[in-house]
């Protein structure tokens, strides 16, 4: 907070409001590669209905989406593609790593598998399970919303750091 405090006070409130808006309009890009993709479909379909949490409008173009859900294995052939897609998304952007394969390689500690996608892109929420049940993914989504509201995600922290450094 600067010495007079007036404008800073206003900025923080605006940021809160923007974050509130952001957390209620998530546009997921489903990066479904294997088994977890089927559970992601379950989450989107009628039984669990992700629309209840404001994240049902699935966008397949990275330019139109702000939430990357990596559902399933990312192997070494796929990792550069994932990085490309992440780079193409506009800021602010969030990443959910769904399932054991994406989070850590899971049971596949072999020559062809990335041992966790956090070696490729920054991850905000890890959802454990092989594959996680839809309830797990929904819980991860709610956790992400909390993080967005508090400005704790990688993307928002990066944004803040840039602002503070005056760039």
């Amino acid at each position, binding site marked *: 907070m600067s010495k007079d405090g007036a404008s800073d006070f206003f900025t923080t409130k605006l940021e809160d409001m923007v974050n509130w808006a952001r957390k209620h309009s998530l546009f997921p890009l489903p990066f479904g590669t294997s088994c977890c993709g089927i559970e992601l479909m379950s989450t989107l379909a009628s039984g669990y209905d992700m629309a209840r949490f404001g994240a049902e409008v699935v966008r397949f173009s990275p330019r139109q989406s702000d939430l990357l859900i990596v559902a399933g294995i990312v192997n070494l052939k796929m*990792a*550069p593609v994932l990085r490309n897609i992440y780079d193409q998304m506009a800021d602010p952007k969030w990443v959910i790593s769904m399932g054991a394969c994406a989070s850590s390689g899971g049971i596949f500690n072999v*020559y062809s598998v990335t041992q966790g996608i956090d070696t490729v892109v920054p991850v905000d929420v890890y959802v454990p399970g092989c594959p996680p049940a839809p309830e797990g993914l929904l819980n991860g989504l709610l956790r992400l919303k909390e993080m967005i509201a508090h400005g704790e995600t990688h993307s928002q922290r990066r944004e803040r750091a840039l602002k503070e450094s005056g760039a």
Partner: protein
Amino acid sequence: MNIQKPVSSIYGNWKEKFSSQWASVLEALKNQFPEAIEEVLLPESHPVDIPTFFVSKAGSLAVLRELKEVHGFSFLTDYTASDEGGQKRFHLIIHLMNLSSKARIRMKIQLSEQETFPTLIPLWEGANWAEREIFDMFGIRFDGHPDLRRILMDVRWEGHPLRKDYPLRGYQVFLTPEPIDPELFK
């Protein structure tokens, strides 16, 4: 061995059903290609579920053609390889099925590490990718294959993962996506 015990409740008893057909086919092959057939392992005397015979590299294409066109084994079920070590390091393994009687038969070809093998695409077009996979995983080259590229791994990958000397965790990292060869679309 245990495999000789008929496991009829789990799987149809192949040995009773097909043994006469297997015997007649193998007899005919032995008469026609006496120098090509190296060794025959029968379910009666060896721990295999279907007759497995080793064929020399030179005679293998003729034997396959005979099996396909005369004996009716026209369905290429599986085409793979295994790394056995030793002088003749690789075994090419071909599973064939007879579409009318549904009998199956297994044929093996022994190759040393540097040896190549003629492609089976003239007999079965589906052998194309199977051969690419064998090349990718074991490094066996196929003569006359139109497009012998890696199939599962990145084209820049070094080594062949399913060889016994390749480590289970031999990662190779690439920072850019796999390049496409424009020649493919000419």
